């Protein structure tokens, strides 16, 4: 009986039902889509990066991952291969032989990692061959070589041409050979595109004189979430001699950026969930609130309170289930559709190059467990939102409920004066807002919360990227680098800047230039008594450098370079480990000087630095500017001038000024976006992602507002009927509804911005510590794990304005509906 009544109530008020169901459905659909989108993005990042070359798991001799030398070659790989193939979770395994070599063509050469693979086996584990963009993939029976696109570019080589490899063989002898380039691959992952050369396994074994040897066995698992158990199983079955590493260890940068992405997007998702909950709760709350009178009558005729509550709950469940069905259908449908078709991020921003491992297309993922969680949350929200006002109504005395609780007492006395100056419809709108305080509170609260969430999410994003850009440019590059055209490609010492003193004075006079420091940079070979490593040698002028970068603050042992310390060198911790040198010991640096001669100098290690980046720590060494100038025979010339700006936001304008001042043929100014392209791509990529989130956000909030306005209009149908009977023109009624929305939304915006900005400011000072989520991950330079949200007017104001405009626009529809009401029907409306 009760259920039948609930049904009939749901069917009776079609509009209310439609509003409630659509709110639930749209909220759920948006959330489903967004979660699927984010999951798809994260999954793709992992799949793409691991499937190109790393595989899911690799097996090496212990210690190989930290120090990949031929000394750690597995002499007989057959037994190991049998062991790993025996594991039921392993789908495929590929034996590899890897080593370092120097690749040359003409006068150009590059250090490369040569990897030998058995093409047929390899194709079962990775998809590198599918990334070939020029020439063809590798065949087992030939001596051809595949190069990464950036490597091929640097060597100026194309498919069909030949290159020379020189290296050190397993037995210590010099290895060399001449190989034709079969093809060029593009993975968009710098570590592969810039350094990897792939040949057949036999050719590499022959090159390194290690017949039957292998340095790694790469595995693909049937299910990649099985990494931990597979590792444990193989580690015990293979024993102490071997290390079994999962992709997060093999690709720490990918692991941390995936992790980071998960954390950041979950923060956003959580905010979004609350907004959706508010969007679902609002109309349900209002729909029940509207019926206080009806409940009073039911109580008056003897319905028990429990029964009334059960009725409301049953109605909410019916509406909720309808909403869930529609929302899941819409959300899963959309997600599945885009999961197949893909979302082309490139369409949102021209020239967007994606992050490592991400192609321009994102394929959202449908997951049953997520849909279940979301459905449960949404249904629970709807039920609570319905029960709250029902409990209140049931607690009323029936008479009170019948008369309606929305009685304005307080403001009654001051009515007279107001109607004179204000247009009467503004007055009515304003009074309506005051009359039904609870409705006003619900509407304003809901919209204000959305604005607040906007402000916070964007403050979070902005703060995060701002901090990351700021930190990253502090490591090395500064905000702008002045150099000779082409210098960055090879760090060729002869491409130096003349008369640096004069240049510096001029640059420093530009407004918004906070500091400028001269530098010398070159590729060099650093050797200790036992080992040699290729490095980038950087000569710095210690004092000015301190106001451009914080190199001096990364010192963990010894001290930073001081002016005049021309016989000292500061090296990274990883590099110190590889060279096996300690503080106070000597390092010999060799480099090709500007005059073409080989420059050599010995320095004493006076400091060791550590950053969050292993690339920095293993490849960079600092000496003083004069020391580097004399090593490279530069005289007074420098390689670059690095500039730090007072206000990074004014980069464009300052670049103009700088260009005018430093205008000389062959000189170029590179902004940080060019110096740190990966960072720039990451920022821009996330901007696109946040725009997508914003769009979905706006859609949900706008429909919620429209539904709420609809509710507010429906509740006052009779009043509109009377207004019409009195001869009120339809336009005036439309305006009244819109005025009300404007007043409510202005209040909501003020409230939302106020609280949002206060929150962002608070957390901007305190910082939001996410580092707990990054424990056990290697770090990206500039990523500290502590986010300081920041209010940037350019990004926080537009969403609020858009929301305000959107809400006024969406209120036009219910307003038009109100104006088009049939007055007779409206007056008859119960």
């Amino acid at each position: 009986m009760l259920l039948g009544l609930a049904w009939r109530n749901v069917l009776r008020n079609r509009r209310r039902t439609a509003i409630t169901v659509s709110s639930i459905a749209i909220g759920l659909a948006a959330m489903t889509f967004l979660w699927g989108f984010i999951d798809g993005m994260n999954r793709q990042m992992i799949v793409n990066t691991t499937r190109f070359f790393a595989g899911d798991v690799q097996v090496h001799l212990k210690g190989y991952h930290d120090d990949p030398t031929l000394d750690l070659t597995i002499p007989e790989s057959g037994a190991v291969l049998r062991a790993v193939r025996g594991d039921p979770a392993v789908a495929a395994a590929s034996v590899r032989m890897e080593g370092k070599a120097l690749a040359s063509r003409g006068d150009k050469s590059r250090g490369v990692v040569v990897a030998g693979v058995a093409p047929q086996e390899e194709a079962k584990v990775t998809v590198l061959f599918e990334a070939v963009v020029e020439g063809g993939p590798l065949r087992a029976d030939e001596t051809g070589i595949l190069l990464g696109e950036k490597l091929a570019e640097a060597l100026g080589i194309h498919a069909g041409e030949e290159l020379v490899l020189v290296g050190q063989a397993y037995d210590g002898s010099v290895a060399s050979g001449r190989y034709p380039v079969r093809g060029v691959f593009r993975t968009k992952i710098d570590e592969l595109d810039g350094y990897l050369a792939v040949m057949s396994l036999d050719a590499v074994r022959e090159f390194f004189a290690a017949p039957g040897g292998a340095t790694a066995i790469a595995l693909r698992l049937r299910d990649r979430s099985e990494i931990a158990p597979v590792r444990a199983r193989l580690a015990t079955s293979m024993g102490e001699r071997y290390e079994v590493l999962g992709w997060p260890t093999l690709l720490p940068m990918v692991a941390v950026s995936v992790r980071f992405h998960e954390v950041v997007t979950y923060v956003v998702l959580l905010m979004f969930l609350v907004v959706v909950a508010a969007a679902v709760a609002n109309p349900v709350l209002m729909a029940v609130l509207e019926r206080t009178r009806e409940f009073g009558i039911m109580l008056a005729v003897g319905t028990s309170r429990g029964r009334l509550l059960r009725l409301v709950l049953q109605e909410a469940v019916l509406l909720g289930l309808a909403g869930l069905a529609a929302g899941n259908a819409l959300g899963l449908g959309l997600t599945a559709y885009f999961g197949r078709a893909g979302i082309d991020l490139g369409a949102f921003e021209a020239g967007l190059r994606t992050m490592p491992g991400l192609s321009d297309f994102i394929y959202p993922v449908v997951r049953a467990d997520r849909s279940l969680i979301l459905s449960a949350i949404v249904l629970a929200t709807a039920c609570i939102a319905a029960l709250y006002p029902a409990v209140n109504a049931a607690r009323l005395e029936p008479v009170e409920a019948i008369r309606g609780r929305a009685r304005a007492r307080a403001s009654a006395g001051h009515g007279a004066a107001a109607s004179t100056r204000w247009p009467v419809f503004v007055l009515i709108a304003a009074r309506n807002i005051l009359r039904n305080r609870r409705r006003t509170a619900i509407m304003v609260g809901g919209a204000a919360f959305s604005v607040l969430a906007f402000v916070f999410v964007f403050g979070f994003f902005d703060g995060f990227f701002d901090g990351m850009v700021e930190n990253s440019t502090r490591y090395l590059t500064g905000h702008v680098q002045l150099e000779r055209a082409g210098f960055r490609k090879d760090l060729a010492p002869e491409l130096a800047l003349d008369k640096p003193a004069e240049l510096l004075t001029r640059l420093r006079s530009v407004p918004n230039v906070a500091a400028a420091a001269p530098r010398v940079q070159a590729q060099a070979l650093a050797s200790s008594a036992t080992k040699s490593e290729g490095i980038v040698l950087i000569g710095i002028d210690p004092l000015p450098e301190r106001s451009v970068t914080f190199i001096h603050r990364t010192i963990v042992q010894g001290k930073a370079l001081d002016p005049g310390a021309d016989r000292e060198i500061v090296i990274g911790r990883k590099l110190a480990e590889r060279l096996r040198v300690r503080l106070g010991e000597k390092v010999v640096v060799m480099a090709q000087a500007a005059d073409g001669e080989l420059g050599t100098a010995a320095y004493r290690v006076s400091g060791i630095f550590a950053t969050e980046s292993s690339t920095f720590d293993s490849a960079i060494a600092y000496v003083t500017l004069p020391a580097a100038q004399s090593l490279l025979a530069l005289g007074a010339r420098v390689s670059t001038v690095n500039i730090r700006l007072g206000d990074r936001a004014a980069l464009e304008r300052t670049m103009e000024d700088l260009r005018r001042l430093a205008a000389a043929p062959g000189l170029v100014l590179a902004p940080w976006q060019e110096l740190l392209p990966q960072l720039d791509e990451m920022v821009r990529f996330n901007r696109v992602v946040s725009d997508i989130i914003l769009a979905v956000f706006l859609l949900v909030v706008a429909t919620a507002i429209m539904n709420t306005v609809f509710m507010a209009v429906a509740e006052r149908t009779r009043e509109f009927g009377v207004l019409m009977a009195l001869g009120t023109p339809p336009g005036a009624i439309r305006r009244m509804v819109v005025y009300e929305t404007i007043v409510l939304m202005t209040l909501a915006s003020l409230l939302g911005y106020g609280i949002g900005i206060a929150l962002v400011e608070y957390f901007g000072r305190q910082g939001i510590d996410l580092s707990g989520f990054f424990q056990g991950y290697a770090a990206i330079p500039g990523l500290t794990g502590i986010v300081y949200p920041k209010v940037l007017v350019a990004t926080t104001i537009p969403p609020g304005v858009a929301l305000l405009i959107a809400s006024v626009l969406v209120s036009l529809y219910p307003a038009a509906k109100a104006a088009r009401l049939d007055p007779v029907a409206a007056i008859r409306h119960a």
Partner: protein
Amino acid sequence: MSADKVVVRLEQVARVYRQNSLAVHALRGISLEIRKGDFAVLVGPSGSGKTTLLNVIGGLDTPTAGRIWVAGTETGRMSKSKLAEMRLRKIGFVFQEFNLIPVLSALENVEFVMLLQGIPEAERRVRSNALLKELGLQGLEHRRPSELSGGQQQRVAVARAIAAEPIIVLPDEPTANLDSKAGGALLDLMRRLNEQKGVTFVFSTHDPMVVERARRVVRLKDGEIEADERRPE
């Protein structure tokens, strides 16, 4: 009687409501003339079409057939906003219940129509206050509808209906929710307005007391006029 004294004229007016596939004939071929100064009641059993007829006269509802003239202008084919304008200038409605704009005070409710008509504030104030006083509502000017009794609300509604000096006032069962004393007082008031100011009234009622005091009684049955009698005073 000359034609210029005809305030409202109906010619073969019909109103059919469609409910699903069923047609409800609320009015069937009503022809009627309301003259200036009429004090007429529509009576008839429930469902006979009284409310529908008032709505059609006042331009709140449109007939499905027939023609209507209000003050010599045909209203049958007017647009919605033209009809609204017509109601504003020429018609005064009083409904059985829920009559007033809840957020406006009694005084503001009375002023509302004049305000829409663009009557200057000072004049509005004077006229509304005089009317409220005349209707025995002095002291209640600044109360909201929810703070007035049913009879008081109804009197405010009458004040609002006549404040803008419409050519005809159309109360729909104005006394139905009032006790006989309040109902009688309201009727006295309307009668006085009719006699002293010449305001034309057509109202529907079930109340025998109202019928007794009317000067013209139109009997409806099943959407048709059964009888139309004038009673000399």
